[in-house]
């Protein structure tokens, strides 16, 4: 484990308006360190996705601050936040969100294309990461020709191809069967071994706990526990 790559400090978030307004997050503090895979678990409506959206610079907190790679997100304009995302964050979504009209390699390349990288360079890097996720032989396929697990691995390849400091994954195994879920988590766990990169996985899937270096539980917008499973380097509990 190395330094903090992503940090939420006293995050509060109100959602809704008028009588429907409610506090989705309350004084949340969370630091994601490089070299570890953190699971953020909690029941539906606990604030997991809201927190993930704030950590991913897609939602502005009502209070508190977010730091990505030491850079504060406060006061940044949408274009600046987009730049923070493309430079420092890789996303893996529950529904994969691949581009159905692009091939596997182009789906990965697009993360570099939006950065203005050359075609040669992006193709080379995309080929490398597709090999890492075990899809070297699927570069020319279209998403519809892949299984759910394979599509999610393409999404992971897209998330890591830009070499981000943090990967945020939203329920990456929710749409997968046990075998594919394990395969996807294995890839994410492997990626999390890089000390320069932290992985945060939002889930309520108990089957993937075994891959976690750390488990953070959230309920009613508050973090209620922060622990390390027995067997990991150090065990700490924070209630």
């Amino acid at each position, binding site marked *: 484990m190395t330094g903090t790559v992503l940090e939420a400090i006293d995050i509060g978030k109100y959602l809704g308006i008028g009588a429907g307004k409610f506090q989705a997050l309350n004084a949340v503090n969370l630091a994601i360190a490089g070299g570890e895979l953190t699971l953020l678990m909690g029941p539906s409506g606990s604030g997991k996705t809201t927190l993930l*959206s704030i950590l991913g610079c*897609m939602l502005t907190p009502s209070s508190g601050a977010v730091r990505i790679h030491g850079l504060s997100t406060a006061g940044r304009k949408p274009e600046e936040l987009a730049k*923070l995302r*493309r430079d420092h964050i890789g996303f893996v979504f529950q529904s994969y969100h691949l581009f159905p*009209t*692009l091939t596997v390699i*182009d789906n990965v*390349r*697009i993360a570099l294309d*939006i950065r203005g990288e050359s075609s040669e360079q992006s193709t080379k890097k995309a080929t490398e990461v597709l090999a890492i996720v075990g899809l070297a032989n699927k570069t020319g396929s279209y998403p519809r020709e892949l299984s759910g697990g394979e599509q999610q691995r393409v999404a992971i390849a897209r998330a890591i191809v830009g070499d981000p400091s943090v990967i945020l994954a939203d329920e990456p195994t929710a749409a997968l069967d046990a075998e594919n879920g394990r395969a996807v988590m294995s890839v994410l766990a492997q990626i999390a071994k890089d000390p320069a990169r932290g992985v945060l996985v939002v889930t309520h899937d108990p089957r993937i706990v075994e891959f976690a270096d750390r488990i953070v539980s959230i309920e009613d917008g508050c973090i209620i526990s922060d622990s390390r499973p027995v067997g990991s380097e150090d065990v700490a509990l924070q209630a």
Partner: protein
Amino acid sequence: MSLAPKLAFRNLFQDRLRLIATVVGIGFSMVLVTIQMGLYVSFEKMVTVMIDHASADLWIVPRGSKSFEDPSLLDEQERFRALSISGVLEAVPLVVGFARWRAPSGATSPIFIVGADGREDGLKPWNLVEGNFESLAIPGAVAIDQSYFDRLETSRIGESAEINDRRVEVLETTRGIRSFTTMPYVFVSPDLARSLTDTPPNKASYFIVHLAPGVNAADIRDQLRARLVNADVLTPDEFGRRSKKFWVSGTGAGAALLMGSVLALIVGTVIVAQTLYSSTKDHLHEFATLRAIGSPGGYIIKVIIIQALISAVIGFCLAAGIGWTVVWATAETALPVIMTPAITLILLLLTILMSVLSAILAIMKVMRIDPVMVFTR
């Protein structure tokens, strides 16, 4: 190569039915613009066709004359005054006027008589198909254009008809000398023209002025304007502009054609805007994904603009193809549609402009995307 064009292309071609509808929409709105513009240009050219083909350095026209087809009479004194100015070589009288053509079947048609003597320094028929220029000197000889054969019930030289109850014989035929009015031009000799239009020998409709080589036409024009009291002196350009102003602007005909073009452009813009908007809505999650993974707004705008441009180019090709077919089909008619390379380029630019403007709605929609939506689906 950047993936933006590929993404745009694939987005468009993914729904081929919608693409066909878009392209047909663009194509036909541009066909309409092409035809309206082609007619407008044709109309403009035809308005000045006689002025353009006369070998005049200057025109002496009756004061206030609005166009070539608005004849009244000038006194020969004006011609002599003109000739008295140093630098004026010749002032050739031209007699024009309205008359009635009666075909052998008895059918009548209004015509516009042009009295030409076949001289190089006057106004003689051009694009001769049959006969020769000198034949107009034969008493009763006329020259008509092939495009009016049906109207005048004539199909070859040697056929007879009557103009204002006087027997005439077709001894020359031409190609492409068409009037924008409903009246065919009929070339006759100056004497016959005088006789048919009741123009006295000491009068003329216009004087075509020829200047000595090297003199300044504007200077002579100014001198003539000072000398001639009941006439306007105009360069061919000035006479052409005056004619266009009268027929194109003054009568509303040009405005109607231009308005048709504008309406076609608006219809085309709405069609493309609607299609791009619905295509963008269909791909909203993809654009949201792009935004979520950090795409700059400019990249997404580029994808949409490229979609618009691809639609524009395909639509333009369709329109150009149909447009050129219309040009070919109307080439020999009384009102041909004209399409020049310049018009083609203007149409391409208009199509592109139309399509890019159409993309604004889609761009506005996509720029308001909340990337958070990628977590909710």
